[in-house]
């Protein structure tokens, strides 16, 4: 297995005691897999992603990538957040090149790499634009290109399309499918949008809240996604998966209920 998360727990000390954000999380992701974690707000999705990214250290357990324990952030994992994902003073091209620049890669190689990935995300024409001139969907595509330019072994996405309108989001979903089919990337994505998860993922992890646990692992078998969002969403299996997940998340109750479980 490529990515392994074993017995991972994360506690946060708060004024009212210890908040168990994640408890005994176990799962793995094979190379080339597209795995989505879904859960209500506050179920610890971002916390989980941050442990995998190495931006935070788990209280117990750990994360392994290719047998190597994750101890900190590193360029072998590409990350895309929901907001503020681009350096606003750099052009699109400079943004995409930046990771390579940090590693001292010569300008010519950087430029070629950036041009290649801008072509992959379909933004070649905007190479010299500033981020603020781009729409939300384009910004996220640049952020994905920037993550890919460093040739990561896994792409980590934290609700990357959460701030986009429905139409743009669906366009991005189809874009992600094409990107994934073209590059055969390993992707671990976090979302609260159940339909997004069903459309994109090979496998879905449903998280319950307080404490955050994996309450269900679900293999998704759907026809070829390149048929498009409209076709897939009409498929009966799509509805079954979606309804099952919605039911599951409803059962978990509201994750932001007034009194989260605290352990003194």
């Amino acid at each position, binding site marked *: 297995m490529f990515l392994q998360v074993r017995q991972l727990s994360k506690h946060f000390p708060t004024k009212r005691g210890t908040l168990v954000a994640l408890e005994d999380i176990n799962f793995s992701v094979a190379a080339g897999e597209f795995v989505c974690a879904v859960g209500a707000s506050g179920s610890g999705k971002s916390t989980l992603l941050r442990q995998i*990214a190495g*931006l935070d250290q788990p209280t117990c357990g750990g994360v392994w990538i290719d047998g190597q324990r994750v101890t*900190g*952030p*590193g*360029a072998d*994992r*590409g*990350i895309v*957040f929901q*907001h*503020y*994902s681009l*350096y*606003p*003073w750099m052009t699109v091209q400079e943004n995409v090149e*930046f*990771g390579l620049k*940090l*590693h001292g890669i010569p300008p010519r190689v950087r430029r070629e790499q950036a041009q290649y990935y801008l072509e992959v995300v379909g933004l070649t024409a905007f190479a010299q634009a*500033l*981020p*603020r001139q781009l729409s939300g969907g384009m910004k996220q595509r640049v*952020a994905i290109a*920037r*993550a890919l330019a*460093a040739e990561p072994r896994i792409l980590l996405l934290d609700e990357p399309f959460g701030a986009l309108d429905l139409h743009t989001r669906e366009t991005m979903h189809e874009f992600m499918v094409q990107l994934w089919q073209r590059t055969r990337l390993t992707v671990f994505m976090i979302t609260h949008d159940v339909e997004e998860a069903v459309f994109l993922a090979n496998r879905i992890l449903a998280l319950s809240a307080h404490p955050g646990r994996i309450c269900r692992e679900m293999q998704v078998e759907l026809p070829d996604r390149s048929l498009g969002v409209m076709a897939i969403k009409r498929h009966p299996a799509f509805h079954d998966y979606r309804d099952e997940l919605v039911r599951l998340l409803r059962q978990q109750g509201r994750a932001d209920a007034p009194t989260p479980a605290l352990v003194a």
Partner: protein
Amino acid sequence: MTDPARSQRIRDQLQPRRLRPSVFWRLAEDIPPRLYWRLVTLSILFPLAVWGLVTWVGAVDPTFLPSPGQVVQAAIRLGRSGELWQDTWASVGRIGVGFTLSALVAIPVGLLMGSFASVRALLEPLFGLMRYMPAPAFIPLLILYQGVGEAPKVTLIFIGTFFFNALMVMDTVKFVPKELIETTYMLGGNRVATVMQVIFPHVLPGVLDACRINLAAAWQLVIVAELVAATEGLGRRISLAGRFLRTDEIFVGIIVIGLIGLGLDLLFQYLVRLTCPWADAK
């Protein structure tokens, strides 16, 4: 419970208060450019007109309030004799040296304070206290330590602006989104690279803005310093003119100070737009 009578009552009360369209009173919106420029012209011409009128009717003794014409003549006189340039240059020079030194030290220190909670804990309490000590109160000490030459004036500007500069630069770092810093870590950036290549460019417009605001304080200080002890400088010119009841020269001094201040302000605004086009609001 729904109560149609109550609903109707409330509706009646709410209805008459409609927002009338307005050009002048637009909240948080731009006004038409022509109106803008008219108002700007008015804001300059109106005080000038009042001033001219008051002196023209002779409402005030010209010894105390010279007319605009007299002030212009005084400016020409001081300009011809070269005194005006000499004084202006002396004051600007002091600010240039004092403020540049202050900014050169305060920007890195403020950047470190903003970036690292440890440096902040180390320096913020001290700086927060120093900031509230009025810099002119240090003048006697500085004269004692450094004599009456250029050094105490430059030092005064330095200590009078350094703490503000550092604390304001520190504050700008708060606005760097955590996501950008973490993205940089994930791309393989270390702390030095993150501070230099991400935090610094992100705060640069804010830093220039802080400098612009604190430059106004530097002007106050240089004049205060010159009023106390100096052989030349605009502050010196004003205090000398006061002693000989040359109010027209006092006005020249004050207006020149204001104009230079405004000029520097605009220069900094231009600098922000030039170096950080991405931060331009429009």
